[in-house]
C-alpha cells in the first residue's frame, strides 16, 4: 500500500512538474513538447485511477491528436511572446494572479479533502442495468445505452468543428484539398515508416473498437489510432487528402451520426423511447452504430488535423 502511494506521489510530482514546465517554457515548441509528455503521464494517472478507457482516450486524443496540432502550430507560427514581452502583465500583477490562482487551487483542494463519505455513486445502478445491453464494458454500456444522447451529441459536435475549420478557408482555397499538413516528400525513413506502420496501426485501431464492447477500448480510441495512421500516410506524401468538395467524403463524414440518429429514432416505435434499443437487439445495434461511427470519426479527426482547404498548385483542377 505504501509503495503504491510512493509511486502515485512520484507520478503526481512528475505531472505537476511538467505542467509548470509547459507554462514557463521559453518557446512555444518546448511548451508543446512538454504538453505531450504531460498528457502521457496523465494517461498513467488515469490507469492508477482504474479508468483504462479514459487513459486510452487521453493518450490517443488528448495527447496524440492535440499534441500534433500544437506542434504544427508552434512550428509554423511566429515565435510567441515570452513572459518578458511588452503587453505581458508586469511582475506585480503576475504575483497577484499567481496568488489568486493559488486560492482557486486551494479551494478545490479543500473540496477534494472534504468529499462526502461514502461517495455518491451511480455504479450499482449501472451494474444492475448493464445485462440488458449485453455489453460487458460498463463504460461502453453507459456511452451507448444509458447516456446515449451525450454520445450522439459528442459525435455530432465534431462535424460543426470540421465545418468551422473548413469555413476558415480563403476564397481561392475553397473546394480544394486541405493544406495544413507538413509535406515531407523526400524523407526516406518517414516514407518507410508510413508504409510499414499503417497495417499494424489499422489492426490495433479495429481491435480497440472490437474489444470495446467487453474490455477497455472503444470507437473514439480506435478512430483516433486510425486517423493517426491516415495522417502519417498523408504527411509522408504517399497519398493526398481528399478535396473537401467531394460528395463521397461528405457522405462518409455524416454516415456514423446518421446511423446513430436513425437507430435512435427507430427506437421511438420499436422500444418506446428515443435512443432505446429493442429487447434482444441491443448488442448488434450497438456494434452497428460503433462500426459506422468509427469510420466517420476516423475521417473527421483526420480531416480536422489536415486543416482548412488551401490552393494546391500541383493539382490543375483546383489551382488558381
Amino acid at each position, binding site marked *: 500500500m505504501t509503495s503504491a502511494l510512493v509511486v502515485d506521489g512520484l507520478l503526481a510530482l512528475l505531472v505537476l512538474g511538467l505542467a509548470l514546465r509547459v507554462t514557463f517554457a521559453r518557446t512555444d515548441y518546448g511548451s508543446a513538447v512538454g504538453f505531450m509528455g504531460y498528457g502521457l503521464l496523465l494517461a498513467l494517472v488515469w490507469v492508477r485511477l482504474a479508468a483504462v478507457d479514459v487513459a486510452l482516450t487521453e493518450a490517443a*486524443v488528448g495527447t496524440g491528436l492535440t499534441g500534433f496540432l500544437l506542434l504544427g502550430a508552434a512550428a509554423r507560427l511566429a515565435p510567441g511572446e*515570452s513572459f518578458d514581452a511588452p503587453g505581458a502583465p508586469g511582475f506585480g500583477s503576475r504575483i497577484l*494572479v499567481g496568488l489568486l490562482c493559488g486560492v482557486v487551487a486551494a479551494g478545490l483542494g479543500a473540496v477534494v479533502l472534504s468529499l462526502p463519505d461514502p*461517495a455518491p455513486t451511480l455504479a450499482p445502478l449501472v451494474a444492475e442495468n448493464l445485462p440488458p445491453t449485453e455489453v460487458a464494458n460498463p463504460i461502453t454500456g453507459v456511452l451507448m445505452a444509458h447516456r446515449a444522447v451525450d454520445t450522439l451529441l*459528442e459525435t455530432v459536435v465534431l462535424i460543426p468543428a470540421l465545418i468551422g475549420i473548413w469555413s*476558415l478557408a480563403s476564397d481561392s482555397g475553397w473546394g480544394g484539398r486541405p493544406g495544413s499538413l507538413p509535406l515531407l516528400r523526400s524523407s526516406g525513413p518517414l516514407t518507410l515508416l508510413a508504409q510499414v506502420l499503417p497495417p499494424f496501426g489499422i489492426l490495433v485501431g479495429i481491435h480497440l473498437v472490437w474489444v470495446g464492447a467487453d474490455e477497455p477500448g472503444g470507437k473514439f480510441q480506435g478512430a483516433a489510432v486510425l486517423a493517426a495512421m491516415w495522417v502519417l500516410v498523408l504527411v509522408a506524401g504517399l497519398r493526398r487528402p481528399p478535396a473537401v468538395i467531394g460528395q463521397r467524403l461528405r457522405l462518409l463524414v455524416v454516415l456514423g451520426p446518421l446511423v446513430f440518429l436513425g437507430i435512435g429514432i427507430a427506437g421511438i416505435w420499436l422500444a418506446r423511447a428515443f435512443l432505446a434499443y429493442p429487447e434482444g437487439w441491443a448488442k448488434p445495434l450497438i456494434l452497428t452504430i460503433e462500426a459506422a461511427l468509427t469510420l466517420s470519426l476516423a475521417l473527421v479527426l483526420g480531416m480536422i488535423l489536415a486543416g482548412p482547404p488551401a490552393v494546391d498548385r500541383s493539382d490543375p483542377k483546383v489551382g488558381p
Partner: protein
Amino acid sequence: MTGETLFGLSGAALVGIGLYGLICHPGALRKIVAFNLLGGGVFLLFGVIAKRGGGALAVAGKGADGDPVPQALVITGLVVAFAATAIAIVLLRGLGERRARASQKGDGSSIQPKRHSGGG
C-alpha cells in the same frame, strides 16, 4: 492519505497552474495550451470522484472499480476539448497568415493589427 486524494490535490493544482498560464501568458498558442492544462485538472478531479464512487461493480464481478458514468463523461469531454482546441488553433493560424500577408503589402503599418489587440 490515499492515492485518490493525492491525485485530487494534483488536479486542483493543475487547475491553478492552467488558470495562471491562461491569464498571464501573452502568447495565444500558450493560452490554448494553458486551457488544456486547466481542462486536464478538471477531468482529473472528475476521475477522482469516479474512483471514489466505484467498488460496487468490482463486487459484482464486472471488472472496473470506478463509477463508469463520470468516466464516460470524461471521455466525451476529452473529445469535445479536442474539437475546441482544433478550431482555436486553425483560427490562430488563419490570423497569423493574415498578419503576414498584411505586413507584406507595402508599409502595412496601417493594416497590420496591433500585436496584442484582441488578446487570445
